[in-house]
């Protein structure tokens, strides 16, 4: 009796041990891409699984689905399945899990700085895209897709921080033009402010990934990392603290609205302040242009958009949002099909339509001359400012630790705008030391 039980136990343990051994062997970078198709399909078809960052039911999700349908009609040998993953952070987490389990999709949209994390499993796209297509991408937006000389990502839904302003408020206060420098930004904010009525000239949110902070820092002449992407330099010459002090002073004199005094989501808070006429200006993604235009018009205001101000008239701004990567572990057929779909998406028609729909930047040069985009610019000429700014795109940090680092930076930044008397030099020194420690402990 006991003997039988022992046999059973040994059997279970052996089975479990074999399972554990099977799944704890040597890890292959990126695992095995492309799960076998779950449904029966034509065996001549190559199936691509594409993880989109937007949910399927959003307008941007629907656009990609329609583009895939159009592609499949012209390319019946390819079947594209698109799955929305619910945001950049969620996408990164799922790719991480998929890498561990060896169930990566064929291609995915990632936030551009996440390439620092995922480039080891990303394919060199120059092998699958014609050189003419690559050369047609906007250079400022394509730059963040390169790791060394290999093109690991291409731009899709891309944006840059721009200055949104309430033109109706500007007109009422006698302000003729949006500010071009930060000093003009402060003066404009003073002209627009009326603290007794709860009106601030400007509102500022650093963003959850410090994107706005990063972009303003570039316009201030600063850098996050050195050229090697290994040394933290944002606190080397004191200009970061000086920049933060500038906004703290504005908050102190009640010309700047800080969302960090409020519990709600900072973006929603400052957007609401601007859209409801309680703040005159805010930095935000040009990807929100279409939505903000509609909201402002509904509220009876006219929206203006201008390039991000600079310190001394020399513009420089961060790029942002989504690039597309194709996973190295996918089969040659799937990678080739993914390359064909990328080429299809880079056609003027789709690039321009996507810009009109969303407000994201036109990612190719030739799309700038398309009828669709010209018509949009004649209707909304202020969008030209966002396009002009692409020329001044600044490189982004390329390290797998960026997510960990910006979490630390944002904590300090939020504290500085929550309490205008917080010591900015000390906050930035602490943040820089912590970031360097993160990089040293987990080198790329």
């Amino acid at each position, binding site marked *: 009796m006991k003997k039988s*039980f022992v046999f059973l136990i040994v059997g279970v343990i052996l089975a479990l041990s074999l399972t554990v051994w099977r799944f704890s062997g040597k890890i292959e970078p990126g695992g095995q891409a492309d799960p076998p198709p779950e449904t029966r399909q034509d065996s001549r078809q190559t199936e691509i699984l594409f993880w989109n960052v937007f949910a399927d039911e959003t307008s941007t999700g629907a656009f990609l689905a329609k583009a895939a349908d159009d592609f499949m009609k012209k390319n019946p040998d390819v079947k594209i399945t698109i799955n929305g993953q619910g945001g950049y952070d969620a996408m990164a987490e799922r790719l*991480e899990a998929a890498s561990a389990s060896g169930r990566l999709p064929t291609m995915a949209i990632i936030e551009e700085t996440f390439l620092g994390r995922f480039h080891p499993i990303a394919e060199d796209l120059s092998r699958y895209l014609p050189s003419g297509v690559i050369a047609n991408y906007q250079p400022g937006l394509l730059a963040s897709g390169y790791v060394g000389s290999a093109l690991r990502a291409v731009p899709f839904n891309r944006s840059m921080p721009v200055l949104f302003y309430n033109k109706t408020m500007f007109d009422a206060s006698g302000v003729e033009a949006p500010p071009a420098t930060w000093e003009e930004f402060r003066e404009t904010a003073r002209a627009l402010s009326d603290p007794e009525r709860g009106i601030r000239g400007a509102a500022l949110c650093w963003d959850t990934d410090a994107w706005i902070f990063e972009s303003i820092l570039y316009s201030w002449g600063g850098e996050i990392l050195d050229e090697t992407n290994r040394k933290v330099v944002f606190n080397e010459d004191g200009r970061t603290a000086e920049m933060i002090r500038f906004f703290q002073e504005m908050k102190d004199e009640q010309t700047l609205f800080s969302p960090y005094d409020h*519990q709600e989501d900072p973006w929603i808070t400052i957007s609401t302040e601007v859209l409801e006429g309680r703040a005159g200006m805010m930095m935000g993604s040009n990807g929100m242009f279409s939505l903000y235009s509609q909201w402002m018009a509904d509220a009876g205001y006219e929206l203006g958009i201008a390039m991000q101000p600079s310190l001394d008239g020399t513009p420089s701004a961060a790029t942002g949002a989504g690039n597309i990567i194709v996973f190295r572990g996918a089969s040659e057929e799937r990678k080739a099909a993914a390359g064909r779909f990328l080429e299809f998406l880079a056609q003027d028609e789709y690039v321009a339509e996507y810009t009109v729909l969303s407000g994201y930047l036109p990612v190719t040069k030739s799309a700038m001359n398309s009828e669709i985009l010209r018509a949009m610019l004649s209707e909304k000429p202020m969008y030209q400012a966002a396009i002009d700014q692409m020329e001044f795109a600044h490189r982004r940090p390329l390290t*797998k630790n960026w997510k*960990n680092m910006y979490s630390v930076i944002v904590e300090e930044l939020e504290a500085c705008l*929550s309490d205008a008397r917080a010591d900015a030099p000390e906050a930035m020194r602490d943040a820089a030391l912590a970031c360097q420690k993160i990089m040293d402990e987990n080198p790329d």
Partner: protein
Amino acid sequence: MKQCACSEGDSVRNYLRRVGSAVLRSPYTLILPAFALCLTFSVVPAALSIRDSFRSVDYVAGIDKFVGAANYASIFTDEVFLEVFKNTVVFMFCTVALSIPLAVAVALFLNEDRFMNNLTQSVIFTPHIVSFVAVATLWMFMMDPRYGILNHALGLFGLPPLRWLMDSSTSLLSLIIVASWKTIGFNSLIVIAALQKIPPELYEAARLDRSSPLGTFFRVTLPMISPVFVFLVTTSVIGAFSTFDLVKFMTEGGPRNSSSLMVYWIYRTGFLHFQIGRAMAGAVVLMLFLAAVSALNFALMNKRAHYQ
């Protein structure tokens, strides 16, 4: 030499049937499914966690190498980890110290079979079955510095408003309040059940001895319900150490890690910062600490608990 169990004439089939029947009726067989599940989903993952805590694991870069105690050295010299560990211990002590005495008080108040008491018991138990997300959302409204009812209440007493979740000096306290509120209902239900098992003749004897109400509570009630404290303290300690949802939905560990707890740190380190080895080292530290606290709790409480 041991004699063969099969006698002459017995077929092999009969023998197997007998053995099979005995195996099926065995208590070991009955616990086998639970044992296998426990092994698969608890023991094996825990063993893998211990293994990975001594390794540098990066699924994306394809790195999996033995690094000895480097992950442990790294977390024990990490100020953030030490702060999070301290936060977790404070959170655990405060939630246990708040929720259990309050649960006893509530239970004593409700320990009579009246309609209103039964209704109140149900109401008090409700937070236990409400999801953490709903609880977090509700309390975030109440703790809003501008519109929240808590600051309004403070104002009625002439007290200054607090920034609750947004201030590093009050964020952990805010989580302690919410966690305690959520567990009081469950804890009080357990204590009520224990109170109702106390033989009435003990109270009668105390009355004959002219014991004061306070004396009766400390000399009769408390010793008689003491065994449930072992259970309540153990479950509360485990609950406090495994708190994740409240941190994730209410503060995300901020401001400046002031409300970050161990499980949230493990999640963040492993899944957001992609440092699986460090996260596993933190998980092992948590597991060992929890085991030590539970063992201590059993040792101390069992000595003092009064079992009938």
